[in-house]
């Protein structure tokens, strides 16, 4: 039997036990970095703009020491405030994401993304949606922003139906500059709407990574015949997992394959994540994509 002590912090079973989201994200990212031989942080994302004369009160950290050495004049380095990447982390908080720990998993993953983005000085924003936009946090890269980001994520709860129109409209309106979209959802409810919307975002020039998050118990149905109640619509269905298990597997596999194929056809990166999948897989996917963008 595997001992708990042998498990990594990247294991969702371990990571999700940490209640504080900021700590959880930090530990996950640092745990990931131990095994990642290259630094995930690629330079200063803040661009140099111009010099200006030093005036008393200026922070001496921004003095250009090289100019001082050559000219013995005090100049302050001015930088471009905006980063070169704007990332939107989009989380589906519809009722179906409330199944088991799917939302926790998505939130942890999102906070880990945010952690990395913050250290890269990338601006990152947050959008959660279900029947409409629930939370919208425009992208920024400040530490304060990160705290707000994590604070908002901490309070996220699953509920409501899925409405893809509002989310993609909102994203399209706000994505004035090309950016990265990290889309975390189970794609349940309006699958075709998800696929269509993500494809449009991709066509707009954005990089899109779609993480389909499902729970292992969704694929491995167990137990006797029962009335299954849809967590979003409340619809009920008599279903016998014992007798229908194989057929369900076939249909689920077909469904996942269809989502994957459709998204990849639209050049959208796709990754299926079950909630027992270690976080490093998703993080690796993200970082590789991030490197490409640079």
């Amino acid at each position, binding site marked *: 039997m595997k001992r708990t002590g042998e498990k990594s912090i990247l294991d969702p079973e371990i990571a999700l036990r940490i209640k504080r989201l900021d700590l959880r994200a930090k530990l996950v990212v640092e745990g990931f970095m131990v095994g990642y031989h290259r630094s995930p942080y690629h330079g200063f994302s803040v661009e140099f703009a111009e010099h200006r004369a030093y005036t008393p009160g200026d922070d001496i950290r921004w003095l250009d020491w090289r100019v001082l050495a050559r000219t013995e004049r005090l100049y302050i380095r001015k930088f471009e405030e905006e980063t070169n990447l704007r990332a939107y982390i989009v989380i589906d908080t519809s*009722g*179906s*994401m*409330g*199944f088991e720990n*799917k939302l926790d998993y998505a939130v942890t993953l999102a906070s880990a993304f945010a952690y990395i983005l913050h250290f890269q000085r990338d601006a990152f924003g947050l959008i959660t949606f279900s029947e409409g936009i629930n939370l919208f946090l425009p992208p920024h890269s400040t530490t304060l922003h990160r705290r707000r980001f994590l604070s908002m994520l901490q309070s996220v709860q699953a509920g409501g139906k899925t409405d893809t129109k509002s989310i993609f409209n909102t994203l399209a309106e706000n994505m004035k500059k090309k950016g990265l979209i990290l889309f975390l959802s*189970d794609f*349940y*409810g309006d699958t075709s709407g998800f696929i269509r919307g993500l494809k449009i975002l991709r066509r707009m020039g954005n990089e899109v990574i779609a993480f389909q998050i*499902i*729970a292992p118990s*969704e694929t491995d149905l167990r*137990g*006797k*015949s*029962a*009335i*299954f*109640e*849809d*967590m*979003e619509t409340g*619809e*009920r*269905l*008599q*279903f*016998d997992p014992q*007798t*229908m298990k*194989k*057929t*369900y597997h*076939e*249909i*689920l596999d077909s*469904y996942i394959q269809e989502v994957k194929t459709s998204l990849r056809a639209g050049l959208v990166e796709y990754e299926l994540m079950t909630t027992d999948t270690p976080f490093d897989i998703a993080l690796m996917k993200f970082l590789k994509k991030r490197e490409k963008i640079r």
Partner: protein
Amino acid sequence: MNFSNPTALYFLPMALIPILIHLLGRRTRRRVKFPWIELLRKASTEGRRRRTPFEIILLIIRTLLILLLILAFANPVHIGNLKGIKTLWVDISHSMSPYISDEGKFIRNIREMIPNVEVKFFADRQIDVNSPEKTYFASSLKSLSGNSVIFTDLQRNMLEGSHIKGHTVIFVPQKRVANRGIVEFETDVPFATADMPVPFSIKVENYSAEPWSGKVELKNSGVTVRGWETYLKPWESVTYRDTITIHGSELEASLLPGDELDGDDRRFAFVPLLSSVKVVMNRQNRYLSAALRPVGIEAPFEISVVTGKIDYPTAAGADVVFLTSPLSVSELNLAKVAASSGKGVVLFVGDSSSAELIRKQLGINIHKVGVSSIGDYMFYRLWSIADGVPLLKDDRGNPIAAYADNIIVCGFLPDPSNTDFIYSPSFPPFVNRIALTSLHRTTVYYVHPDTMLTVPSYTTSLLTLKLPNGKELPITPFMGKGGYFVRIGPFKTVGIYNLVNQKDEVLAVIVVNLDPKESDVRPANAHDLKATFENYEIIKSLEGKGVSMRGKLLWAALLIFLIEVLTILIMRIKNI
């Protein structure tokens, strides 16, 4: 269709269990929250489309399986084409008693099988199978519309020649009636002298389910001469063989305690203890000469034959007088005198005028016998003279070989060419017959209860059969080849049946017993019947009511079970 274990049918609703489980399984109350049931719905639709035919097949199979098992437990019995049967003829002769121990219960069982059936019994009534009217039995069946059924353990000659094709005969294999007692008691010598060893054998049989212990005793003229402590397991028999010297003719084998089940607790054997006999004959008679010269047996007594004119003193001094017809009136009177003096007189009558004379003078009917029987009659007379005591007792303890008139009148069918068979050394087994014949002056028949007996009748008038229980049954003679006959049997109970005329004169004595060795008629077997009837069916037990179908049902259940296993395998292979 009938069931030997009908209470099992109460479990028939159990056959609905698979259907109930199927329905109840669908109606679960357990609720499970699930993120998206759309895929489940598709799976359910698809799965149902694939599974439904198999599920229906499995439901049918399982229901059928339970049904078959319950039916097998109920043990249905097939009784052939009995539906529509209006009349059921049931043989209730004695040999059927193992099957029909309780007539009321039997009838109830029959009526469960065939409602509204008319049950008729035959056993005591006359069943005339050889009559020109195609037998009473057969004609009764012919008069019925539709099929009739006969339950019987038929004896060979019972339905011989009858025409009951098209009717169902349910043959009950003969089961021997439970019997316990002495089944054989024989001596191997026809005569004995005072110091002569007499070999004997006594067979005691316990043909029953219970063990028996007791004592077997042999008495000679009332004195116990041998005794054997005996223990017999069920269905076991023992034979005691030994020799004794006798001091009297009567030998009695008995069981202690007595009153044994359906068997004899006492049996008698008679070995004449002889010394000398004076025989007087009115003329030389070649039959008598042959009879007095036993073939292969040395007579242990002296025989002096006086022929010629027989006067009164001569007759009075003789032990036995043989008179051969034609007889004069004086010779008849001589016979009367000799008889009244206590001497035996045997009259052999070979012509009808003498027979008529005897009938008028002595008031005795003449019963014609074959020449081979002369020796039997004569030796019986000799034995009875030598022994001087009654030979047999009837079932009431009365002597049945009494010398009431000391005259035996024997007519015989002329058969001069058959002289070699006048005397047969095999006569000892007929001692009983002769003794009874002497008493009743007629023929005695030893028969098995299931026998159908044909008895010649000198008259066409109505005769009466007196049953052992005192009841009387009228019987009408019929004309057959060579004269008139009556047919009697089968017999419901063992005992002595007397066939009497309207003057209450005994024409025939029928001793009904269960010992086939003493029966004149061979019991029938299944082969005889099979050859006789087209519709032939063996049913092992009437009260079991037919041929059990349990075996077939269990095989069917096994087959169904294999089909179920196969169906499940197919479902697994096809991933359904």
